[in-house]
Each structure stands twice: as structure tokens, then as C-alpha cells.
């Protein structure tokens, strides 16, 4: 009996000692901090000119502060349109009357039914807004993320992201491999979405976002971020019609749609991209300035 307690105490003690640096490691990771912009805003809110929603495509897509606009980026990786609405409702009280809401559309807008990492939302949404989440997870994530299954590994994966098959490098084969893999993933997700009737639900939610914004007097614009030519070859017009545009057309939304997906200012310029479907800093600056000009043209600014 005594030896059980001693052994247990030794094992628990060592595990706790190991957890301390692991915890710090996770806290510094990209995945843990990718909602940092929202957290900073939470602590120091201000009146906003523009909000953008969306997935990682939008997260890497917009930076309006250098253009003099007060901007809050509410996009997170694999964010569903359901969570777009939740994020908007949580933070729109700071949007000035007549402010702009950019609703980013991507290849997965209508098929995506599962958020990437639930943990991203623990500190930025109310608990009841997050799909079933345990009290332990919700209340410990901020201080002890290492206790959460997969968190350490996610952080570690990011640190050793160069350890991958040569064929998985984003620009190998001029981005063709990366784009093909993404295409297959999106196709599989779309197939599931058709079976599970997710598309109808996502369409209804997009409609809800637009109606909500209009009821609040915000100006809504739909936008699609640019992709590289290799990506555009897979997600060509016919594919995008099937994945997105046919569904969008049935909604008959009376809002402008800024579609930069195959924009020739980007499509052949690898220098603007981090990988074939995500912009880098330079690309982000260019896209933001283009959107800014288009918003001015629309009379939104």
C-alpha cells in the first residue's frame, strides 16, 4: 500500500515537472495563439470600421489597419459559417453603424460542418456558443493547454513542419501536388456534406448572416480570396460552380460579391503566396488595398 502511494507520487511528480515546460511550449505555439488578434481586441476594444469572417484563407487575406481602417479579423482555420455567425454576434457591438462585414467564401463554405480546433473558441466565445464542450476543457485551456489531448502534438507538428515527404512541400511540382491533395480533401468533404445535408444548413446560415447584418444596418460584402494558378487549375470554374456558385445563386442575396479567386494580379505570382491557397504578407497587403479600393467604389467607404 505504502509503495503504491510512493510510486504514484513519484510518477505524478515527474509528469508535473515535465508538464511545466510542455505547457509553456504549447502557449507559445501558433495554434494556441492564432486567435491572438481577437484576444487583444477583447482587452482593448475600440470602434470598428470593418470586420471579416471566414476560414484560414481570410485569416491570411486581410490587413486593413495599415490603410487606416479599424479592423477586426474574426476568421479562424476551418471556421464554419455557423461559427462565422457566432463570432459576428459576439463582436459586432463594436462595429460602428454602417460598418462593413466581409463574409469570406471559399471552396468549403457550403460543405464544411466541423470547426478545426474547438479550443480556438474557448477564450473568444461564450461557452454556450461552443458545441458540447467539457467544463474541464473550457476552464483549463487558457492556463493548462498541455493537458488537452493533441495540443502538444499540434504545437510540435508546427515546429517540425519541414519534416515531411518531398512531395508534400507546398511548391514542389509548382504547387500541383499540394493543390491536388487539397482538391481531393475538398471533394471528399463535399461528398459527405451532400450525404449529411450540410449544404442546406450552411446556405441557411449564410442567409442568416446577411439578414442579421442588414437588420443591424451593417454593409455586407461577400469576398473570395485569390489562389495560385496551380490551385485554380483544380478549382476551376466548373468545380467552383458545383461547390459554391450554384448554391450561392439559389440564395439570391442582394449583396456585392468581390471574387478575386482567379484574379490575374495574383494567380501567376507565387511571390504573393505562402502556399497555393494562402496569401503571405505581401499578398495580404495587395489584396487588402484592392478590397479597400473596391469598397470605396461601392460607396462603402
Amino acid at each position, binding site marked *: 500500500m505504502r509503495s503504491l502511494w510512493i510510486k504514484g507520487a513519484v510518477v505524478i511528480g515527474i509528469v508535473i515537472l515535465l508538464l511545466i515546460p510542455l505547457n509553456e511550449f504549447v502557449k507559445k505555439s501558433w495554434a494556441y495563439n492564432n486567435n491572438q488578434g481577437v484576444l487583444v481586441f477583447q482587452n482593448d476594444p475600440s470602434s470598428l470600421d470593418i470586420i471579416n469572417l471566414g476560414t484560414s484563407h481570410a485569416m491570411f487575406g486581410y490587413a486593413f489597419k495599415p490603410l487606416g481602417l479599424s479592423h477586426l479579423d474574426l476568421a479562424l482555420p476551418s471556421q464554419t459559417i455557423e461559427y462565422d455567425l457566432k463570432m459576428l454576434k459576439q463582436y459586432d457591438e463594436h462595429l460602428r453603424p454602417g460598418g462593413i462585414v466581409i463574409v469570406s467564401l471559399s471552396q468549403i463554405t457550403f460543405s464544411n460542418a466541423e470547426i478545426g480546433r474547438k479550443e480556438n473558441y474557448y477564450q473568444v466565445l461564450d461557452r454556450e456558443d461552443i458545441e458540447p464542450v467539457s467544463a474541464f476543457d473550457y476552464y483549463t485551456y487558457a492556463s493548462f493547454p498541455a493537458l488537452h489531448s493533441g495540443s502538444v502534438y499540434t504545437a510540435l507538428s508546427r515546429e517540425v513542419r519541414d519534416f515531411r515527404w518531398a512531395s*508534400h512541400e507546398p511548391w514542389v511540382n509548382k504547387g500541383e501536388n499540394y493543390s491536388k491533395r487539397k482538391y481531393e480533401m475538398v*471533394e471528399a468533404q463535399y461528398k459527405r456534406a451532400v450525404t449529411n445535408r450540410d449544404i442546406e444548413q450552411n446556405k441557411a446560415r449564410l442567409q442568416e448572416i446577411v439578414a442579421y447584418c442588414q437588420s443591424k444596418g451593417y454593409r455586407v460584402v461577400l469576398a473570395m480570396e485569390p489562389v495560385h494558378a496551380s490551385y485554380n487549375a483544380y478549382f476551376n470554374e466548373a468545380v467552383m460552380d458545383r461547390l459554391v456558385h450554384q448554391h450561392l445563386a439559389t440564395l439570391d442575396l442582394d449583396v456585392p460579391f468581390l471574387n478575386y479567386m482567379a484574379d490575374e494580379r495574383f494567380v501567376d505570382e507565387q511571390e504573393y503566396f505562402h502556399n497555393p491557397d494562402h496569401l503571405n504578407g505581401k499578398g495580404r497587403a495587395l489584396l487588402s488595398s484592392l478590397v479597400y479600393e473596391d469598397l470605396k467604389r461601392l460607396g462603402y467607404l
Partner: protein
Amino acid sequence: MTFISIEFLLFVALLVAMYYVVPHRFRWVLLLAASYLFYATLSIQFIPLLLVSTAFTYVTGILIERQDEKRQKKRLMVMGVFVLVMFLGWFKYFNFVNDSLRAMAGLMGWNYDIPYQDIVLPLAISFYTFQAISYLVDLYRGKLKAERHYGYFSIYFAFFPQLVAGPIERAKKLLPQFKAEQRFDYEHVSYGMKRIAWGFFKKTLIADRLAPMVATVFSRPDPTGSEIVLGTMLFSIQLYADFSACSDIAIGTARLFGIKLTENFRQPHFAVSIADFWNRWHISLSTWLRDYIFIPLCKGKKKRHQIYVAIIITFLISGIWHGAAWSFVLWGLIHGIYRVFGDATKHHREQLASFVRLDRTPELHKWINIATTFQLVSFSRVFFVSDSVAQAFHHARLYVTPSSWAPTGMLHALELFSLLDFVVFLFFFTAVHVFQYIERTKGSAWDWLAGRSTLANVAIQLFVIVSVLVFGVSSEGFIYGGF
């Protein structure tokens, strides 16, 4: 609250502490409350069904025992089993039967207008229904006495460690253990904790690490043959790791309370034949099917072909128990055919082995048998993992196409996965095999471990816990939890 959560570990720790403090006569209340609470956190809406099934089986059991005549006992037993099967049938098989009838009516040009019903499958119904059936049948057979204590009986029905995915226990084994006063035993608690940790290890480092890889293959619009071969073999490993981890956690948790549950696995992927496989895989279900389906079907039958028919029927029931879909029925049929073919050709295969002198190298012969059995089992799992019969046949055809096995294609298929994920999986898969090797050569790895120094024990425990914390990933639930 799922098994793979800190809440579950805290829940169990608190419960164990209370269990050994509370006087024995009140422990059933604690276990029963904990079991219902556990079930409620997973599926509160089906608590009434669990309560009704429990009460129905309890009353039927007493009524069976009260009958003097064998015929009356049988009539009540059959009625009881029928009602339990109807509960299961409504929730699990209504839409399967309905869809099948609709498809058949469509083919025959009949008018069939019963619509699809939105029925949710109650958690654990397949498991507790089988336990209830075994209780009623054993009572009828006079193998046990009807349990009069409603509290103990209810725990037998809902004991939380094994409620969700087994092992499927018999009342004769479990009830006396609940009634016996369990004293705090260092060996039990230590063993239970190690078993739970090992379950976490297999689930988070093997099963859930493989899950997205397997899903990647089977969700692809047009997978190659090599991808299907690789994906199916990985699915076999995933399924074993997932289900055996669930059993490990169940057995470990029960042992913390001094309760010994049935071992559900004995390294099934090292089976030397299909018959051997079914002695090692989901043992509690295999023995249940043997005792309550196969043996009654064989009663009075002596001819070989009659036994073969009983085997096929037993495996078809096994298939349909797993899931309400024709792909599961086909999976069961394939195993039935394997089993019959294995028995019918046993003599010829032995002659062939002798002819090619394999019998002179028994070790090589054994490993050829293991590899063949694994491949047969993996092939059948194409039907287990595919979404539809059409897809299953397409995948099965790819699986048996020789070009699918080309090494270059297999290496290319590996690139579907993240290199880091694959390397991490390989490392921990090797660790599991070291454990299994010790099991095979030393008898019990747990006993072997107990014989090592304290330092070695602590180091191994740290390896397991830290590996789970750093490299573990977890999806929701267990595959067999869905059955």
C-alpha cells in the same frame, strides 16, 4: 464524458475513493448511481429505455424461475428474448429493413410507402440487450438463479466500465463479484491503473492516430488499389487498437473496484487460422454467439453440412449485430465462408503443407498461417469500413488486384499521410509489438512487468503517460461504441 478524458479519470478516482470508504452494504447504490450518471452524460435521453429494459428483464427472470414446467419456462424465456430483440430491432434495424423492403418493392414494381424514420440508436443497446438475453436463457437452462436484489441486478445491466462497448458479461460471473465484499487490494488497484494507462496508450497513439489516415483513404473520390490495400490494413490495426483499448480501460476500471471482467482479446492478429482468430477477437461476443446461437442451432444435428449451415447463420447474426447494413451482413457471410472453408479443407491443407515440407519448419509454417489469416481478415474488413455494398465490392476488387500490391504503389500510397504522423505511429506501433512479444514469450506482460525493478516500472509508466500527453491525439468515442 468519454473514456478518453480527464473527467473520466477524475470521476473514477473519486468513485474508487468513495467505494472503499462506503460500507459494503451501500456500495451497490454508489456503483448504480455512478453507472446511470455515466450513461446520462453520454446519452441521457435513453436512460428510460435502459431502466425499462432492466425492469422487464428482472421481472421476466423471476417469472421464469417461478414456473414449474419446463415448457412454461421456455415460453416465458422466448417471450422475454422476443421483447428484448424487438427493442433492439426497432432502434437498430427498422430503417435497414424498411430501406431493404423499399428497394425490393421498387425492383418488383410494388407500392411501398412506409417512410424513413428518424430513429437514433440508443447507446450500448446492442451490448446490454445481449447481456439480458444471456441472463434469461441461462435462467431457463437452470445455470443460475434469478437475482432478487434489484440493485445488484441493475448494476449487472448498467455497470459503467463495460456498459458502452463490453466485454459482454454473464450474470453468473458478474453478480457474485458485486455481492462479494471487495477489500482495497494494492495488486488490483495497481493493475487497474496500468491497464487504463495502456488503453489510453493504444487509443490515443495508435487508433486515433490512424483514424484520419484511414478516413483519408476511404473518403477519396477515386482511391488507387495500393491506397485501398494500405488503408485496409491500417484500418485493421486501428480497429484492434481502438476496441482493445476500450476493453483495456473497461477491464482496468472494473479491477479498481475489485471486479474481474472477461478478457476480450488475445492478440488476434497473430491468429494462425480463422477459427483461431475468433478465439482471440471480441472473445465475449464470440462465446456469446457460440453459447446462444451456434450451440442451439446445432442441437440434434450431426451431419457436417448441417453444422456448416449453423456456422454461416451464426456469422450472419454476428455481422448484423455489428451494424444495420448489407455490408456488415456480407462481412459476416465472408467470415462464415472462411470458417466453413477452413474446416472443409483442413485435411487437404495439412497434406499440402506436408507435400511442400512446410511441416518440417513449423515456425515458418506458423508465420505463413499468421500472414494468411491477417490478410483474410483484412480483406473482410473492406466490407466493414466501406460506406455501401457497391463501394465495398469496388474496394474489394481493388484489394485483390495484383498490381495494387506493387511496392512502388504502396510507397506512393504512404505519401497520402503526413510523414511526421506516420513516423510517430510507427514508433508507438513498435512499442505495442514489444509488449505483445513479451506477452507471447513470457506469458503475461503485466506479470513480467511486476517482476522488474521499481525504477524500470516507474520508467515504463512515465513513458506511457508522457507519450500520451505529448503525442496522443483523440477523436470522440470508440468505433464499437457506435454498435
